[in-house]
């Protein structure tokens, strides 16, 4: 029940802040902040509760209510450690998203926060929905407010980016819907019980040929969201044009829903087919790592550059998931978390730079370290995180993924490891173009403000903490080894 309340708090917070904004935009901001903070506190509290009983069933919150009984659709939400970790990330980044919009958004504040909170609600819904249709609902609901965030508060090419974002994801969604339906009917025809419930559908036996096609439907949807390389084109545009909080949420959370979907649905629902397709998916993952890195290197638009690094990093997720190795799976979860933090931080930083310099073109920046020494230091921290420097969370993630993948797919793993070199190259280029060299701008640029410092400090502390003390996360998602027979070892 508490899960529903958490989502409702966001939904209600969104509506209230929209209504309130007409009279006082400031109050709207505070309401939005409050709503997300309350959710984060609840999730933290649940985390401590969960840590106290780690040996209980992995689904420690499970709530089901009728919705459309005629079709076997129920309002089923449940949470295990994996969902929990993702919820923590969602609300944490949610708070930061509200904070980093504080000054940036000057028009239509209420509607902005409405959209932001509803996106977060959709995302958290995705992470806890255990009914396929409910999942699909949440999956879609997070898109529309996100779309508005892009087209209303985005940059010059926001409409193009908006269309691209929406249409790309929609192709995947609809194919996934077809797959969900096919699964539903196969399961129903077999057992006579027509239901969209995740736990019931888990025990569906399918003819391999059919299972392959159904899985493909799911996989394409998640691959587009992740994104996997041939389907990644929406991402640089959407990330580039979205407002800062939009990019933060896109990179930090929306992409993660794709990873979540693959782990939660593709692997357990189609254990055999997933194994069959694994080499191809790993190939895609490796291609993504390299291709994304090469593109990231050549970009001159700071946000597009960061966006392509996301493409590269998400390749690790794919490699990790499909190498069917428990260590790699833990690495994937770490990658989900740490990429959310590090790339989110880079986007926030890009937003701050844009606010000051009114450009995203790194050729027009340079020498910012002189006037923004604080931000320079933080930038180094996060570019290094993105380059996979040990002691920062991303290293643990990439190390686990590559190590795990190496056991089963040594060649792919080695090629993926070359991505580390490329990541160093593009990270350094970014750092150099923005912060080093002679300063181009003559007017004085303010260093990081107190509010920005809070955002960046929170992110920095988390990324370092994840790098040095990853064990709580690993313990929390230890049960992921049960989702697929090959992960038991």
């Amino acid at each position, binding site marked *: 029940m508490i899960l529903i309340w958490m989502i409702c708090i966001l939904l209600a917070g969104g509506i209230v802040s929209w209504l309130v904004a007409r009279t006082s935009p400031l109050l709207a901001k505070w309401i939005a902040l409050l709503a997300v903070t309350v959710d984060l506190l609840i999730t933290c509290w649940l985390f401590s509760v969960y840590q106290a009983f780690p040996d209980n069933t992995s689904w420690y919150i499970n709530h089901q209510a009728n919705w459309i009984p005629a079709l076997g659709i129920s309002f089923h939400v449940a949470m295990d450690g994996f969902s929990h970790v993702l919820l923590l990330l969602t609300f944490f980044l949610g708070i930061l998203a509200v904070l980093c919009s504080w000054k940036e958004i000057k028009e239509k504040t209420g509607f902005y926060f409405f959209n932001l909170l509803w996106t977060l609600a959709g995302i958290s819904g995705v992470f806890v929905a255990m009914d396929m249709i409910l999942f699909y609902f949440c999956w879609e609901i997070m898109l529309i407010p996100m779309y508005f965030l892009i087209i209303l508060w985005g940059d010059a090419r926001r409409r193009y980016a908006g269309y691209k974002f929406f249409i790309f994801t929609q192709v995947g969604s609809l194919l996934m819907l077809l797959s969900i339906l096919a699964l539903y009917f196969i399961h129903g025809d077999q057992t006579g019980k027509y239901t969209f419930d995740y736990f019931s559908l888990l025990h569906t036996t399918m003819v391999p040929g059919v299972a392959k096609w159904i899985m493909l439907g799911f996989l394409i949807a998640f691959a587009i969201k992740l994104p996997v390389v041939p389907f990644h084109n929406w991402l640089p545009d959407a990330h580039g044009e979205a407002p800062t909080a939009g990019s933060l949420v896109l990179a930090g959370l929306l992409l993660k829903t794709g990873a979540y979907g693959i782990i939660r649905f593709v692997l357990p629902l189609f254990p055999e087919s997933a194994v069959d397709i694994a080499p191809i998916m790993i190939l895609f993952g490796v291609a993504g790592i390299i291709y994304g890195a090469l*593109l990231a290197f050549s970009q001159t638009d700071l946000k597009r550059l960061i966006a392509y690094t996301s493409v590269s990093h998400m390749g690790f997720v794919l490699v990790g998931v499909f190498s069917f190795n428990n260590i790699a799976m833990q690495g994937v979860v770490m990658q989900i978390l740490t990429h959310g933090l590090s790339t989110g931080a880079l986007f926030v930083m890009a937003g701050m730079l844009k606010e000051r310099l009114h450009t995203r073109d790194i050729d027009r920046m340079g020498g910012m370290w002189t006037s923004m020494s604080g931000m320079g230091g933080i930038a180094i921290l996060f570019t290094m995180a993105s380059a996979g*420097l*040990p002691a920062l969370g991303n290293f643990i993630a990439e190390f686990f993924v*590559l190590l795990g993948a190496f056991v089963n797919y040594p060649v792919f793993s080695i090629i993926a490891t070359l991505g580390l070199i490329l990541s160093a190259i593009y990270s350094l280029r970014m750092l150099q173009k923005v912060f080093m060299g002679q300063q181009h701008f003559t007017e004085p640029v303010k260093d990081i403000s107190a509010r920005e410092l809070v955002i960046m400090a929170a992110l920095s502390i988390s990324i370092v903490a994840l790098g040095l003390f990853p064990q709580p996360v*690993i313990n929390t998602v230890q049960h992921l080894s049960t989702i697929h027979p090959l992960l038991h070892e």
Partner: protein
Amino acid sequence: MQHYLYLIPALPLLGFLVLSMAGKRLSRNLIAGIGAGSICVSALIALITSASFLQSPPATGAYRQVLWHWFVTGHLSADVSLRMDALSLVFICIITFIGALIHIYSIAFMREDRDYARFFASMNLFVCAMLTLVMADNLVLMYLGWEGVGLCSYLLIGFWYETPANYRAANKAFVITRIGDTAMIIGLFLLFKELGTLYIPDILAKAPQQFSSGAHTITLIALLLLSGGIGKSAQLPLQTWLPDAMAGPSPVSALIHAATMVTAGVYLIARMHTLFELSPIAMQVTAIIGAVTLFIAGCSAMVQTDIKRILAYSTISQIGYMFLALGVGAWSAAIFHFFTHAFFKALLFLAAGAVIETLHHEHDIFKMGGLRKKMPVIFYTFTIGAAALAALPLVTAGFFSKDQILWYAWSANGGHPVLWALALMGAFITAFYSTRLILVVFWGEMKTTPGHLPGNAMTIPLVILAFFSVAVGWIEWPHNIMHVSLFSELVQQALPTTIMKGDLPHEIVFQFIAVVVSLLGIYTGYVLYYGQSELLMRWKQSDGLMNVRHFLYKGWKFDQLYDMLLVRPFMFITGINKSDVSDKLYTAIANANLYLNRIFSVSQNGSLRWYVTGVLIGILFIITLQLLL
């Protein structure tokens, strides 16, 4: 004593944290106090700990302290835990002691710099990372330190980030070492896959059981780890970053790019010696790389004109000696050379830094000259350093360590006359360019007027280092001369003794040859740069020689080679794909739809008769279908 082990890296870390967060608000004195103080205390603790280690060696052969469990998942586990055995003890002492001296030197050297706090913060972080590297008891933590020193090296090379050459050098250093690191981490994966552990003592214990000598896998692992070492230690073929790395402030060059970080590869190989011993091929490769590197780098050092680049090439060359020693199985000789080299190379860099500072940032040695009288302290200390580098017999530390390596290059189990010959040529070259350096910089006429002379804070560390550059050699004598082998006794607690070949000539012969060759080198230098400089003039007329000189000057044109083979293709590929080829596909789909839209729109032309035709088409279509089915 081992309970305080964590303080050794923790203090510099603390210094880094304080300086990086509050650096802007602290006064310069406080910054210097925190920056240098943390290292000094750390050095003190390191020395006390070492003393206690030496007095009563622990039963396990190592102090160990587990700070916290880093991660455990499945078989993979790693702790943040520190370990100090004889090998790491040597490294820890060098890092903290020389680090402390260099920090003290930097207090004065960097005094005028705008980013005083950032400098000390980075230096402290470097020391912390380097200590983590050598104190780690598992390879993951070691990799943490390994990458950490890479980062600090990057930050410090690019310390004056406003100049393009500096940040380019920093990028180059980071990327090239990253290539080695990546190979190393693949080696780690392979190790884990084969042995199921990354805990160093376990690896060393398990490897001989798991692998037969010369097995493919172990060779592969050893070579991958070697690649890591090559990258960090600037050996062939990844040596090109080090000369450029001299863009950083001189104390940085002294600490990172001479005394400590660049020897991390030596440490890694020595640490993983069991793996290398299991693979004769990897040992051979190490030796060959070392021998070739020392020669190639030495040749380049002969013709450089930038004082720091001379020293940089000499560093590459000296580390080449260490690799050679490791490759032939002369473990303690390699570490001993590291030990002595750390002192005299740090000394040389610091002294060079002082010269450069005094001559208003003049790097070209041919614009110096005649400084002997003007700055005597610098002159004497520099000369001692250069003598050690040139391995002046008996009075310098460099002689003792290099002599051992030369001897083992022939006589150790992995030794070979060719390796020895290369090493000998290297010794000649080293002696030659050391002499050239001294003569050109300190003799002759004064070409640049010196400015403000360095103060005590800078000269005292030089004097201390000069003392050690002479004295540390005496703890380890060639055993045919005197039975003092304090160092190898210590190191052999952690490393195996060198296995020798059978029936060898007398060691004294080799020592004599080595002595003659270095003296010859010094004499040649004297003749060319002091006595008969017209010979040099004549050579400069010859095009062929000038081409050779240019080739050597450019570091055997490795940079151009890599530029052509790697950088340009990379830039080309990324350049043409800047706008993402795959985007074209989707644009094409969108355009196809819009095109179709225009085509279809033509049908909506408003003509009633055409609409009727539409109906007719429909009925015809239905009838056709009917006929077909």
